[in-house]
């Protein structure tokens, strides 16, 4: 079964920031508010990001899937002036109970518009 998790990002992207799940319109420098527990063992793949009303400003921003507070290889970088990116190549294995979050890392003064919609697929073994 494939399920899609959504996150929502906006605002400052200098250094590391973390996004709220679903409609939570937050981007924070602390990660826990943006973490959701995974219900089953599975594989994360297909990271997609679209800034819906503007572009990345000043410096590139890398959007990354994280598990238990650690970066995974599932990552896409959007250059300044760009508004969309994806990683349809890398995967990350996850276990039930792992904490999923998405974050970004940008350079000095990197800024996202309001908002970016972020989606990542979670594929589990069928029951």
């Amino acid at each position, binding site marked *: *079964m*494939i*399920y*899609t998790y*959504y996150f929502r990002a906006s605002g400052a992207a200098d250094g590391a920031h973390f996004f709220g799940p*679903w*409609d939570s*319109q937050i981007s924070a420098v602390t990660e826990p508010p943006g973490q959701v527990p995974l219900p089953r063992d599975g594989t994360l793949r*297909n990271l*997609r*990001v*679209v800034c*819906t*009303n503007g572009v990345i400003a000043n410096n590139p921003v890398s959007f990354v899937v994280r598990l238990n507070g650690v970066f995974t290889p599932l990552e896409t970088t959007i250059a300044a002036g760009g508004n*969309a990116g*994806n990683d349809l190549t890398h995967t990350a294995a996850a276990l039930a109970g792992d904490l999923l979050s998405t974050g970004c890392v940008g350079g000095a003064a990197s800024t996202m518009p*309001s*908002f970016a*919609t*972020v*989606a990542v*697929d979670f*594929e*589990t073994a*069928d029951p």
Partner: protein
Amino acid sequence: MCCNPLNPQPPAPPEPVIGIMSYYFLFSGNASGLSFAGPWNGAVQSNEPFAQVIIPRDGVLRRLRVRCVAGALSGGVATTFTARVNAANTALAFAMTSGTSIGSDLVNEIPVTAGQLLSIGVSGPGGATAPANTRIFVELDPP
């Protein structure tokens, strides 16, 4: 069709089942003009980009449903609910009359591709009003 009994091949692993995604949107209040329901519990938006979510895979949008959970539409005029893709109306839409609280479009289907943006437009003439917690659902099925 299969197999050489002297050289059995292991069965191929099953393909993952691509399930139905259900999207939830929330709307309340003034529905005159064109505004946009907030995804999940998000606030109603007059600016559509704030209400768009990315579509994760190719598929078909269908089964647009509206349920007013705290009253009925009011204002004496109809309110139209429309699934929009990349900020354009689609045929997946229906109008609900004032005084009703449940409606759906279970007929029209909209093919979509990964990366497109989904939103729900809510529109009506002056006076159109939706009660608080008007819930809108739409499904993304496998192609």
